[in-house]
């Protein structure tokens, strides 16, 4: 980082960036509450929920937790393990679909 030399004096960012992110988080939370308020259903509801969720999570991690300014070694150590979670989600989706199938097949359809 070229900032390294200056780091003895100041390491902080302007207050404006924090206030902006803070405001954005409020607005995004309000929007995600509105998704429920207006009772959107189906794909529209799910995609809006996910969109606002990832936006909020990204803002918190990038700016409040300083990952945007952090060194790549740390960022990569933190973010790559998330692919394992993605794999796990993928596996468990296949699993619950199979469970639903067997339940419908044996309990409802009667085998």
């Amino acid at each position, binding site marked *: *980082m*070229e900032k*390294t*030399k200056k*780091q*003895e004096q*100041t*390491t*902080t960012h302007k*207050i404006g960036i*924090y*206030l902006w*992110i*803070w405001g954005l*988080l*409020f607005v995004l*939370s309000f929007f*995600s*509450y509105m*998704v*429920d*308020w207006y*009772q959107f259903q189906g794909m529209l509801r*799910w995609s809006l*929920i*996910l969109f*606002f*969720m990832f936006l*909020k*999570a990204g803002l*918190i*991690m990038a*700016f*409040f*937790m*300083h990952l945007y*300014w*952090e*060194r*790549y*070694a*740390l960022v*990569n*150590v*933190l973010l790559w*393990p*998330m692919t394992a*979670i993605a794999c*796990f*989600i993928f596996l*468990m*989706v296949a*699993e*619950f679909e199979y*469970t*639903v199938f067997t*339940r*419908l097949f044996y*309990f*409802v359809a009667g085998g």
Partner: protein
Amino acid sequence: MSDIKIEGYEFKPGFKGMAKDTGSDQTMFKGVHWGKAMMWIFLLSDTFIFSCFLISYMKGRGSTLIDWPNPSEVFGLNVFGVDVPLLLIAIMTFVLITSSGTMALAVKYGYEKNKKMCGWLILATAIGGLTFVGMQAFEWSKLIHEGVRPWENPFGAPQFGSFFFMITGFHGTHVSIGVIFLFIYAYKTFAGHYDQGKRGWFTTMKGDYVEIEILGLYWHFVDLVWVFIFAFFYLW
């Protein structure tokens, strides 16, 4: 961002810097405070725990043939005769975001060695967290009065209760522990422990404002987890 400069080691940005950092002599993350690195590792492991809870919730909810209770009705409040869906949860979300913002500012003022502002903002964060826990206690007692149990509930699929108590309970525990530490750190800030470099009780580490950033990481993580719980448990 607060990393100190190591003599004879020049930090490079980007992937080149990452390769150099990862393959560097003796230690990785040179110049990063060990407490900060360890907090990140802890948060990573905590991410996996919460992920496991949320994934098991997804699996449970996805595989039941009984209708899932409608969260916007279950968590709705009746205010002056009007049913407002999910009201309490929305307020809790705003309270937690407010406390997250004050924490971010506390970290900033900590690095500027502004003891007063930093202390008051940590105190404000603690009070926000306390409000959140209080509202969660209210929510729990309300649902328990309505007959929600880990094994049954009057609204629909019986799994609902166990996932609800497990996930929000674990998150609430995190918030409670955070609140305790926030109060301790507010005291330590006002008492000037970080200006004088006073040592803490668990460690021989000299007090420094980097500790505020480490505490901030934990607190933002609690907020981050709530973002996911809010989306998946309450809104979905």
